[in-house]
């Protein structure tokens, strides 16, 4: 085996150097031409070449006898120096270079390419603004067409119920619904306490202690509990949908599904949408109860309103309409969260970074849309005088 055994990382080796040789037509290289000291070596070469202010004519000898080690970076520097000299008009020739270094230099010379051209200049502000606006519009249209495609897939599924993946729906019910019980319950309980606590002071001042039930009941059941549940689920499950589908896109699993003849919408999107449409109203009902419970605890502690008094009053305070409005918003929110999460997952373009980006976007977008739609509901209900 003919293998060079130069210890390229030995500490005792002198760094690379280059200097004018004995005659004006000679350069002397020495030391270890390694990546480790490439920055200094580059500076030495510049300094040395600077002396050839006038281009040298004819042949220039580069004595490389004292070169003790070389790696590709060192070879590159030597090659670049030779090229610079030759564009100056002379021919440069290495003498005394060890055969293995000679081979390396040849390898580098034959594989030389110019570094890729610089990337396109950064566009101006107006261009970027226009581009962002256009992309935003495309995104909205994309989401809309995704909604359409999912609806069609759902219709197909309803025609042939055997196509619906019940097992997957059950799994999603478990992960998005049952597993969310502790956190949604705790948060709405705390929210009930906070509202009751804030209201208690005002109500006591006017001696209207009993109206605590109206305050807590109505605000929780009609507005806050659907909203907070939707926001928590968007953060918990919407992001998980985006990350799962996004990663499956990166690993080409989505393409594989298509190839096998399973619609990604049927397998990945519909079960999630259906499961969430079932789970979110149930979760909202649960958070209604937990929120009111929090208010009851606070009412007894702060306002001496007993549990039975509170519940009696609740019956008058919260109409069936209010309750149904609160619960009725939940399926709409569920569709928004599941579709935005899945849609953003499908927007992933192959890099790990874009999985993160689309996951973030999915949460931000679905929370934004949930609050927007909630506001639209309020306006619509006030028109309808509900």
């Amino acid at each position, binding site marked *: 085996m003919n293998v060079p055994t130069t210890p390229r990382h030995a500490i005792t080796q002198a760094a690379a150097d280059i200097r004018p040789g004995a005659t004006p037509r000679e350069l002397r290289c020495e030391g270890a031409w390694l990546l480790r000291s490439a920055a200094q070596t580059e500076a030495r070469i510049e300094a040395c070449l600077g002396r050839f202010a006038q281009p040298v004519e004819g042949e220039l000898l580069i004595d490389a006898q004292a070169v003790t080690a070389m790696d590709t970076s060192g070879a590159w520097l030597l090659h670049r120096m030779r090229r610079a000299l030759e564009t100056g008009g002379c021919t440069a020739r290495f003498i005394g270079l060890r055969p293995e270094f000679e081979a390396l230099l040849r390898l580098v010379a034959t594989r030389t390419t110019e570094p*890729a051209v610089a990337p396109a200049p950064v566009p101006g502000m107006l261009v970027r603004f226009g581009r962002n606006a256009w992309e935003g519009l495309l995104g909205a249209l994309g989401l809309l067409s995704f909604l359409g495609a999912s609806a069609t897939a759902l219709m197909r599924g309803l025609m042939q119920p055997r196509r619906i993946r019940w097992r997957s729906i059950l799994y999603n019910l478990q992960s998005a619904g049952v597993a969310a019980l502790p956190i949604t319950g705790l948060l709405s309980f705390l929210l009930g306490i906070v509202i009751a606590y804030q209201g208690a002071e005002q109500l006591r001042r006017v001696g209207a202690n009993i109206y605590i039930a109206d305050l807590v009941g109505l605000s929780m059941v009609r507005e806050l509990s659907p909203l907070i549940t939707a926001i928590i689920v968007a953060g918990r499950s919407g992001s998980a949908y985006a990350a799962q589908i996004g990663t499956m896109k990166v690993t080409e699993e989505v393409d594989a599904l298509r190839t096998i003849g399973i619609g990604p919408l049927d397998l990945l999107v519909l079960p999630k949408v259906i499961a969430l449409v079932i789970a979110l109203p149930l979760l909202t009902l649960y958070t209604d109860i937990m929120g009111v419970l929090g208010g009851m605890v606070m009412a007894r502690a702060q306002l001496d309103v007993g549990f039975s008094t509170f519940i009696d009053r609740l019956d008058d305070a919260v109409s069936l309409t209010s309750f149904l409005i609160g619960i009725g918003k939940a399926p709409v929110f569920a569709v928004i969260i599941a579709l935005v999460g899945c849609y953003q997952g499908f927007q992933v373009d192959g890099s790990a970074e874009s999985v993160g980006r689309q996951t973030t976007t999915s949460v931000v977008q679905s929370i934004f849309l949930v609050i927007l739609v909630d506001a639209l509901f309020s306006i619509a209900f006030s028109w309808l005088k509900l």
Partner: protein
Amino acid sequence: MNAAAATIPDNIVEVSDLNTRFGAAVVHRDVSLSVRRGEIFALVGGSGCGKSTMLREIILLQPPVSGSIRVFGQEVLGLSDEQALPLRRRWGMMFERGALFSSLTVTENVAMVLREHTRLGTKLIAEIAALKIALTGLPADAGAKYPSELSGGMRKRAALARALALDPELLFLDEPTAGLDPLSAAGIDELVHQLRDALGITIMMVTHDLDLLWRAADRIAVLGEERILGKGTMQELARSEHPVIREYFYGPRGRGAREQAWNRK
């Protein structure tokens, strides 16, 4: 050889009495092997016999149950990330599926390593990155592309370019030719040889590619049944009586590669 060379032992990698278990499944039982300086060493064996696992243990990605692994004469087991850094700069690893950073272009993937570990100017880094990319046989315009825009074979070359970024003394290749067309695979054989001859790199690879074994490997160890079934040159192993090794080298594909290698000689 000068005095400094004496500090680097002849065995660049030395694995002794290595034991690996995943739960109840034993992967390696008292496995020992060594890789000498400047050689191209190949680890072969059936799927799931722990070849890649051993590679991962050597480069400190995964701890074995017991045993000793010395790289450049230094015990690596039990080193912290910080202690391992000087060693990690001296070896390069090419992962089976490339493991390129998907949010960076190929050039940025290579340049990132250089920027992290050297203090070179931007221009020189760009030049060296372009050189490494060219060395692996990629076209110049591949540098500006993202990994997701490359074919599998090109991704592999780009991964090799990144592994070579710091001019390592020791190069680990995990399945360097898997998923490549025969022409690209032959290019990798040639490249592995050129790197060894020109740079004196020691190469340790895991491979299934019998052509690559015949053409590039100096010594081979066959891993199976939790231990080393045989090691030596391709010719020595071809004479082995062990049934698994015979099956491996004299199976239909093994015979073809062997005949081809003979015809070439």
